[in-house]
């Protein structure tokens, strides 16, 4: 698309303010059944989104409307679309806020991306994974993109990020030696480029879980017991805390966090420390600015359990009076007071696989059907499956502990293990 024409048309329109996001995606995809190629796909697309702002009632309100303008739009069509946006923007009045200012110069943060090399790495990595008669790869899908995102606004911002973004979806099977029972496990791994070591670790661990699941008994009715999380399901807990510091949720009175106060009342275990950072190794979210042109800086969100800084979109950040703020893409959560080994003491259930584990960011409700867990009790370990974990963060976080050891999941650098002293386990195998 001719972005220069679009800019001149926006300037000519007399719009109060405007912004353009030009997102190009040159992507390759490979779909495998076992290790045979099922389908290959390529895409070369450009999505140009324009948002027009109108200042209303002498600056008391700001209206806005957005639209994706297809690259195929003619100049006349573009002018008409801008006119429609201007009309619609006047229909939605929000309290006034300003767009993020720039210095009028273009800024570029460009990373070299080779679709060929990254594709080669992924395909070879997957083919070289160790497989056995009783556990192997069922199918996988590889998605690789060279992303090119340019953000421009009427206040002089002009930022371009070019970066790699990859995703790998893998289905793993494990079966008994008699081949009369087979189960599957699912993994979705995201990253910048191909991280062969991380993929191998995750798949090997998943295969071991698969073998264990074949031996699983029904989860007993355990009631309230300590529960340990040591896989990526634990990210749900950190997303809950992240949400409490989101300016939009605070402005909408859904988050009750107050700066300088505990992010949740009554936390007697480890105190959570969470930092937003601009860069994490091989993250698919290493950007110079956010999607609205705000520079991304390292910033504490929660320190030792105390709310430090809200973050978020420009509109809600300004409503809260935040001087510096941006959207958050990479998060670091500090390790806790105990080692992984110490967190695995006494009786506890270690839940490693769920149908779909969720912590509701608004209500704090915790829920997930257990597909695989290890019930450690009275000096022995019982492999269990079925039933569910439930609870609420307000009570659960009262006794929450993090491991000192860390684990990196794309844009989340978090404690490897998290333990809650009390969560409810609804089993299916009778009382313990």
């Amino acid at each position, binding site marked *: 698309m001719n972005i220069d024409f679009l800019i001149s048309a926006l300037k000519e329109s007399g719009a109060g303010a405007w912004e353009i996001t030009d997102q190009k995606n040159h992507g390759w995809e490979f779909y495998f059944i076992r290790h*045979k190629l099922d389908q290959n796909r390529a895409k070369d697309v450009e999505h140009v989104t324009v948002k027009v702002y109108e200042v209303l009632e002498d600056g008391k309100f700001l209206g806005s409307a957005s639209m994706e303008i297809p690259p195929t739009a003619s100049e006349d069509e573009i002018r008409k679309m801008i006119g429609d946006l201007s009309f619609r923007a006047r229909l939605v009045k929000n309290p006034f806020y300003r767009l993020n200012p720039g210095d009028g110069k273009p800024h570029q943060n460009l990373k070299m991306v080779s679709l060929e090399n990254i594709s080669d790495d992924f395909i070879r990595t997957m083919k070289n994974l160790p497989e056995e008669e009783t556990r192997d790869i069922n199918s996988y899908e590889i998605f690789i993109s060279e992303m090119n995102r340019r953000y421009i606004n009427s206040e002089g911002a002009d930022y371009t990020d070019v970066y790699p973004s990859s995703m790998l979806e893998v289905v793993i099977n494990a079966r008994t030696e008699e081949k009369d029972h087979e189960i599957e496990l699912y993994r979705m791994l995201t990253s910048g480029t191909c991280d062969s070591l991380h993929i191998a670790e995750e798949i090997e661990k998943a295969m071991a879980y698969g073998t264990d699941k074949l031996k699983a008994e029904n989860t007993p009715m355990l009631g309230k017991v300590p529960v340990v999380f040591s896989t990526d399901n634990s990210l749900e807990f950190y997303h809950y805390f992240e949400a409490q510091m989101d300016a939009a949720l605070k402005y909408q009175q859904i988050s009750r966090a107050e700066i300088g106060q505990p992010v949740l009342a009554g936390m007697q275990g480890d105190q959570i420390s969470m930092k937003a950072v601009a860069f994490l190794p091989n993250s698919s979210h290493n950007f110079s600015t956010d999607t609205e042109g705000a520079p991304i800086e390292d910033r504490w969100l929660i320190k030792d359990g105390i709310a430090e800084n809200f973050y978020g979109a420009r509109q809600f950040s300004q409503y809260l009076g935040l001087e510096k703020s941006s959207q958050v893409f990479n998060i670091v959560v500090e390790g806790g007071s105990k080692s992984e080994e110490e967190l695995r003491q006494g009786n506890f259930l270690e839940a490693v696989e769920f149908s779909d584990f969720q912590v509701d960011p608004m209500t704090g409700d915790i829920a997930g059907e257990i597909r695989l867990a290890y019930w450690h009790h009275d000096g022995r370990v019982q492999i269990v499956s079925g039933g569910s974990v439930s609870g609420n963060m307000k009570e659960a976080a009262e006794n929450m502990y993090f491991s000192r050891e860390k684990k990196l999941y794309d844009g989340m650098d978090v404690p490897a293990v998290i333990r809650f002293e009390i969560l409810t386990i*609804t089993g299916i195998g009778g009382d313990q």
Partner: protein
Amino acid sequence: MKAKFSPYLTRLAQFFRELSQELSKDYNYVSILSTDSVGFAVRISQRSKSVSSKTMTTERGTVIRVHDQGLYSEYAFNDIDCSRAMYQTASERKAYVLETAEKIKTELGRQMNILKRTQTAVYTTPTLKDEERVLLVEKEAEILPEEADMEKLIENLGRLSDQGVASLEGALDCVMSAQCTHINKMFITPKQYLRQSYCYAEGTAVLIATNGEDTKFAYEGVSGLGGVEIFDGLEEKLLSAVKQAKELLSSGRIEPGEYDIITAPSITGLIAHEAFGHGVEMDMFVKNRALGKEYINQRVGSDLVTMHEGALCGDTVTAFAFDDEGTLAGDVTEIDHGILKTGICDALAALRLGVEPTGNGKRENFEHKVYTRMTNTVFDSGSDSLEEMIASIKHGYLLDGTESGMEDPKHWGIQCIVSRGYEIRVGVLTGRVVSPVVMTGYVPDLLGSISMASSDRVLEGNGGCGKGYKEWVKVADGGPYLKARARLG
């Protein structure tokens, strides 16, 4: 009025027909899906308001599928030089056809080089048939999204948001949303020319409220095939959301255990979707990822369980005329009186399994691959009344309000997170409400326990459905009230 087919796509049709013929010289199958779907999304609350032209299904772009030496490949793009594709003479257009064909071949050739370098073998698939077919379907809608009176709609949603907040002590906000999309899709091969145009709309009322300690949100929605007129039903839904919010604010926790349950149509639909929706998507059969493959013609539910799937099963958000591979919409009886009869299938999975496709090949949008996906998934009605069902329960819950669900086709595990459980004791609703409720179980046990079904039936189509954790598409599901037995926590 008819939802008129996109003039933009009509003007591109000749170019794509010539492109499909040109590519046929190098490939033994070529199809082109081109889309031009427009719409709007409005969200009005007490604290923020937004309007945009983007919905879950708005798109303008093209995907080309080719087949060579047993391998299907696709190329998706959205930049076309319209002046060359639409308006030039045949000879001038020919140059652009050749240029576009070359670009596609070159890009796919780069991928083939990687596959050769890594010595990657191909999962060989037969060639799809191409037979002469011409079709134009334009479905009815009273008010198209392009012709919506946005000022009136925004004003109305604002009034409802005010009304919602005023109706409830402890209300933090009332979010009113309305989305309407006019879908236009054109499917072209050297022998086929299919076009369809239809509208669907969905609106929601969400009450966010607190009792000083807990924050709860109640949700109700309207959806269906049609245009902006669908939003007329939002006011009634808001009243229902207000009632639910009150119930949630005083709700308690359920004592975990196994109970007699009655599922409201929203939860009946969730069970249909999770249990034998995903479980019989036959692209999963190709990969040996679904237990359903081994249970065809076997009992998987009680005699009361009959389940249909297909775009023809209801005038909903997914009532298309043909799917994204050009297969005409269908109506498949998946379960007949408790016996699993068949699954649903996209065109490529059908080739591999040696069956006929069922009209369930769907893409998230033109950029995404086709998978076997659900459309309308619905349980048939029975002959009982809701009152009779409640009266038959000694201690149990009436479950209503979908929060989320997850399937496990390989093991037939099911997880449904339900917003509200209404306690029933000795045949009457006690007024006690529990929230949230996690319903888990083994699909044949759950369906096998169905002992009563009401005579009415409702289909709902708000929100989206993913495959794994991606590939979001519109679906609808529903059925009658069902009485069953399930594990709740």
